């Protein structure tokens, strides 16, 4: 038979290792050259564009950048930016989880309320919301806290409660909650229904299933977009400069309003934003790795391994 003949003719032992001439990629070298030339010309402009002696405030003025990079007012702005970002994200995530769970509720009133919240805060510009909260005392001069339609327990002027910081946090947090709820909802939906059923069959309560089974698995889907949201939030805090909250951009503005060195101070601001977002990238990497456990046989290759593998043949 044909098959048995083939078996007989096959030489014994392992065949020789393949030695072939690899495919050349001239296109890659040309593309790399073009990119390098453009990058070099941009770098030259940035370095040599230090400004001319005759035209004041022209060019990048790197010495001014260096002078203000660690200015105490700028550093204070950095600190304010960090804690406003952190607080607003905490408010946003808490509201987001609550709104997402409400949205998935079988009760139409509860899910409808969540839908309305998301619809309103996603549908209006963040800048408008910020100015709105800042001017709240114009709408409600006094604020009362108490039993609905019953006696008020606390009664005070809006001005004393809605400070600039509170207005800023309310605006950023409420807006973020609307976006986060959609992210959390997508995460919850992504968990296979069999997971809840297995947990139900073991006698676990709905709250236990959500907390121990569904949310930890949803985190894998929730974390990457939440990282994006945090980076957006960090930059969106600069919008609070319009209500004179002393964050990083406002700190720079108060300096350049006096000395007119606008460009160097905006560079200072940009450097600090880049430093902060870079730190967030690192944090996100570790959080993703934590929640990714149990989902792939091998952990994803580290950054170092990926750089090293560029030179290898498999790439």
């Amino acid at each position, binding site marked *: 038979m044909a098959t048995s003949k083939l078996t007989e003719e096959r030489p014994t032992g392992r065949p020789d290792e393949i030695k072939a001439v690899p495919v050349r990629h001239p296109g890659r070298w040309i593309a790399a050259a073009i990119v390098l030339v453009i990058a070099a010309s941009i770098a030259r402009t940035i370095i040599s564009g230090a400004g001319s002696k005759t035209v004041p405030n022209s060019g990048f003025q790197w010495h001014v950048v260096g002078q203000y990079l660690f200015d105490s007012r700028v550093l204070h702005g950095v600190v304010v930016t960090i804690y406003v970002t952190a607080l607003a994200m905490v408010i946003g995530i808490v509201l987001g989880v609550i709104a997402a769970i409400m949205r998935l509720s079988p009760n139409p009133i509860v899910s409808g309320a969540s839908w309305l919240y998301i619809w309103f805060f996603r549908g209006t510009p963040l800048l408008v919301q910020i100015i709105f909260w800042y001017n709240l005392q114009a709408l409600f001069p006094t604020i009362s806290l108490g039993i609905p339609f019953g006696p008020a327990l606390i009664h005070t002027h809006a001005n004393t409660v809605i400070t600039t910081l509170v207005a800023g946090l309310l605006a950023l947090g409420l807006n973020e909650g609307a976006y986060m709820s959609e992210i959390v909802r997508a995460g919850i939906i992504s968990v*296979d229904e*069999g*997971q809840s*059923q*297995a*947990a*139900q*069959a*073991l*006698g*676990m*309560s*709905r709250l*236990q299933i959500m907390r*121990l*089974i569904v949310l*930890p*698995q949803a985190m894998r889907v929730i974390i990457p977009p939440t990282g994006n949201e945090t980076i957006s939030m960090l930059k969106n805090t600069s919008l609070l400069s319009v209500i004179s909250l002393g964050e990083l951009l406002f700190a720079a503005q108060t300096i350049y309003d006096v000395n007119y060195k606008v460009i160097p101070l905006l560079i200072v601001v940009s450097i600090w934003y880049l430093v902060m977002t870079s730190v967030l990238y690192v944090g996100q990497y570790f959080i993703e790795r934590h*929640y990714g*456990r*149990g*989902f*792939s*046989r091998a952990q994803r290759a580290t950054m170092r391994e990926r750089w090293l593998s560029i030179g290898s043949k498999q790439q």
Partner: protein
Amino acid sequence: MSELMVKAEGVHKSFGRLEVLKGIDLEVRRGEVMCILGPSGSGKSTFLRCINHLEKINAGRLSVDGELVGYREKGGKLYELNEREVARERAEIGMVFQHFNLFPHMTALENVTLAPIQVKDVPRSDARNRGQQLLQRVGLGDKLATYPVALSGGQQQRVAIARSLAMEPKLMLFDEPTSALDPELVGEVLDVMRQLARDGMTMIVVTHEIGFAREVADAVVFMDDGVVVESGPPAEVLGAPRHERTRAFLSKVL
């Protein structure tokens, strides 16, 4: 303690306008192993899911160990059980799924110890000891710290069985436990189930493994189109089926 573990009388279940169960009557005694056979879509998995109230029945009566599933009867009236009471009923019934449904973010041991710790308030160290014993019993004593993704299908299903046993159930439900497995892995799961039957566990097994049913089952039920067509000892139902539909089905799967 009731001699009957499961008693179903005229159980009906519909999904919308589609009637899946059209009056199921059957009884499972304590310590008995019942295998349910039948073509896909015959309602056998749905019936299994009714027993631990993952599905609500529309008509008839279904009780486990003398207690109605999902309801309480008082003065001739039925009262729906609340979430807590349903969970308490479920905690006494183990269930093994076709697709294992292990918790992927937990190790094998964590999968096994989770429910005893959370639901029965077993101290953590006791739960761990018991979990280790159970995993050893299903032949996975060396996989305690392994995540499900790194286990074969047969190993995952054995962890799932150990996870159910950790709750010390009085009844075990198996929903096509070997249907998602590669053929060479089916044996190891059936071995564990065979051992469990020998130890006296009451089991209801929805399966296509005729050999297992013949060897292990005390009773075999053949279901088709939402009704029980034929039931009895395996020698009768599998060896000398009286009904034409049973014969046609067996000739296809054997």
